[in-house]
């Protein structure tokens, strides 16, 4: 009996030790997302939240640091030729894809060509400047461009630079997103639509010494209040897009930490200048009326009332801390008297009635209500029309709006925040602004690679666009990520992505 008792005790202890140690060894990070990502294929993906998941499974040629500089990831370095039309990229040796295939120049060429040529590829317009790709040697490729294009490297720090395994991509075609195979620190395990995405550590990652967490589960939870509730109750370890109005609550909770960075994008009002019959109004026709609207808004008060002062007021397409911000055009202070004078000068009598399209969302509505109330004092009668997001995009395309409250998630290169909105007939230029001088300045900024020269080109753009352009920039949001105190070593980049390399779970 003694023996059997001891045997039982021993096996029990062994069992506990095994399962216990297994539990200790398996560190599991649970991340709460604000939306369900769309398809997990770097070529076909188009959501901001999808990029957060990609940050763990798909490495890119380059990455960015806090100062928005281009740093190596799967590529070690780059060289641009003197005429700007050829870019040589040296690749990192010893990198494997999740299926064991080696990463080399052929794979890099395949991935880039997939981004360029696949039907329905959203990356094509981003790197359309690439004409051909040449394999120089097994660890270097040369991109031949149609014309010099300095934002190209910035594009390669995002989805357009993500490398996929040629074997897996060839086999899966456009179904690649159901089971992506890339070269990131984690490999894809499973996905239950609208419920969770599970990834686990990739043992052969090139930087495996810096990867400390075994498993990550991404859980899309649309309601921000519920997302935070989950974090508080311990159901999640990290959440993205904390509401500005919840910042105080997070700061007041001892076991939570708030980490923030100013976003790359902006939030503003797009104005209809020449898109269809609705543009035929005092605001669309006369730049003075647009300036009057701007002068009636107190950006600081707006920030204070809606966001508790946590966001950053702005008046340009890049935030005030960005190198390319033009100091010669500071944020105008509210001036109702001047606004009224401008309206009078423009020959406007009586309140200016305008259709104000606002995509549905609690913060959007609050911002719209504040703007409406402020503008009313200067003589504007803004009629708020809350629209479903899907509908609003089409309405904007068709010109069925006069004011449109919409933001842009932002790109690391200033070109990504401006070209498609400010140049004649550009795809996202819903206000249909068109100025030859601005177009020329943009072309110059694209051709030059010296930042100082580019900034000078952008000064011309700012001088014209801020005076009579089709976008009224209001503020820049903050990337707000809240983590539980179990998390160590997390740093937030301005692009909002959740980078998991170097993060430890206590």
């Amino acid at each position: 009996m003694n023996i059997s008792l001891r045997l039982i005790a021993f096996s029990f202890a062994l069992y506990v030790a095994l399962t216990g140690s297994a539990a200790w060894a398996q560190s599991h990070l649970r991340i709460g997302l604000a939306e369900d990502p769309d398809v997990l294929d770097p070529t076909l993906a188009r959501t901001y939240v999808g990029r957060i998941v990609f940050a763990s499974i798909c490495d890119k040629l380059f990455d960015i640091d806090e100062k928005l500089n281009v740093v190596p990831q799967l590529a070690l370095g780059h060289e641009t030729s003197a005429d700007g039309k050829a870019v040589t990229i040296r690749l990192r040796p010893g990198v494997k894809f999740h299926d064991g295939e080696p990463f080399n120049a052929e794979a890099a060429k395949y991935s880039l060509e997939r981004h360029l040529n696949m039907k329905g590829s959203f990356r094509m317009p981003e790197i359309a400047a690439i004409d051909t790709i040449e394999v120089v040697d097994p660890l270097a490729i040369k991109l031949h461009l149609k014309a010099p294009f300095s934002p190209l490297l910035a594009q390669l720090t995002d989805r357009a630079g993500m490398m996929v395994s040629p074997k897996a991509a060839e086999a899966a075609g456009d179904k690649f997103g159901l089971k992506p195979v890339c070269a990131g620190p984690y490999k894809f395990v499973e996905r239950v639509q609208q419920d969770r995405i599970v990834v686990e550590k990739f043992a052969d990652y090139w930087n495996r010494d810096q990867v400390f967490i075994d498993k990550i589960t991404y859980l899309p939870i649309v309601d921000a209040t519920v997302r935070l509730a989950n974090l508080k109750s311990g159901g999640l370890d990290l959440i993205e897009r904390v509401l500005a109005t919840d910042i105080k609550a997070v700061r007041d909770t001892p076991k939570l930490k708030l980490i923030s960075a100013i976003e790359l994008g902006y939030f503003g009002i797009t104005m209809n200048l020449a898109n269809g019959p609705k543009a035929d109004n005092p605001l669309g026709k006369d730049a003075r009326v647009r300036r009057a609207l701007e002068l009636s808004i107190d950006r600081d008060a707006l920030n204070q009332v809606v966001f508790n002062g946590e966001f950053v007021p702005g008046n340009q397409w890049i935030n005030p801390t960005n190198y390319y911000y033009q100091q010669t055009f500071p944020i105008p202070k509210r001036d109702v008297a001047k606004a009224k004078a401008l309206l009078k000068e423009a020959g406007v009598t009586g309140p200016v009635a305008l259709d104000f399209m606002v995509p549905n969302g609690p913060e959007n509505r609050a911002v719209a209500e504040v703007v409406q109330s402020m503008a009313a004092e200067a003589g504007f009668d803004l009629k708020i029309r809350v629209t479903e997001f899907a509908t609003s995009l089409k309405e904007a395309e068709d010109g069925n709006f006069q004011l449109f409250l919409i933001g842009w998630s932002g790109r690391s290169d200033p070109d990504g925040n401006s070209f498609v909105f400010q140049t004649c007939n550009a795809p996202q230029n819903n206000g249909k602004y068109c100025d030859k001088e601005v177009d020329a300045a943009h072309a110059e900024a694209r051709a030059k690679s010296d930042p100082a020269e580019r900034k000078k080109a952008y000064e011309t753009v700012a001088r014209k666009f801020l005076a009579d352009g089709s976008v009224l920039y209001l503020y820049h949001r903050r990337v707000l990520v809240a983590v539980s105190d179990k998390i160590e070593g997390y740093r937030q980049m301005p692009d909002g992505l959740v980078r998991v390399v170097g993060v430890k779970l206590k």
Partner: protein
Amino acid sequence: MTAATLPAITPGEAHEENPWARAWRRLRRRKGAMVGLAVVSLFVLVALLAPWVAPYDPVATSWSAVRKAPSWAHWLGTDEVGRDVLSRVIWGARASLSAGLVSVGIALGVGVPLGLLAGYAGRWIDAILSRIVDAMLAIPFLILAIALAAFLGPSLSNAMIAIGVTATPIFVRLTRGQTLAAKVEDYVEAARAVGNPHWRIALRHVLPNIVPPLLVQASLAIAGAIIAEAALSFLGLGQQPPSPSWGSMLNSAQRFIAQAPWMAFWPGFAIFAAVLSFNLLGDGLRDALDPRHR
């Protein structure tokens, strides 16, 4: 008791009690229904007298009074842009109550005639209408309402139309069922025998007799419509800012439940009170008008 002490029956006094008076008398006895009726009347009164009853302008913003707790100046507190919650609840009653009444009005106005037609005419008209009604009822109510509201464009009146249209099938079915039952009654046969045209029988004889269950269903439907309006406004498809409605107030209040719970509590409570009252009233009406219950 002798014949002398019995009260004399004067000729002319022996008449049937008016069914409406009888129903009212029975309704009075059900305390729940009376409470419901009282609260509903109170809401309607407050909604009608909103401009005089509300202490502040419901859309007047105030940057210095953002999200203030209830106080003597603002009995129910202020919201995220400094508006008085009490005034918005009072004015919101207009939006929510009219959403309830108008949508059910639409459902009655379209559903009852169609139901009469289906029940009375029968055969292929009935078959077609019934299939359409079945199809509409098979699709989730909120999905139908969302699709319609999105199609018509977000506004309170469009939300009312969307809710009204999605509530119509129930009234068609109810009216049809009642009409079918009434068709075989003696008074209908008698009316036919006398030579009344069908439409006259349907309108003058059948319709008045099937009003009771319709009334019951209507009051219950108003309750449902108020909640549906709240749901649509919650999703952004109903009342447009800055005009208040209880549903859109809940939408804005959702983010602040920890910091400013009064923003969410009062419109939610208003919905609850109004809907509960309509439900109590409807239940009471059913009991009062049902000949089987004492």
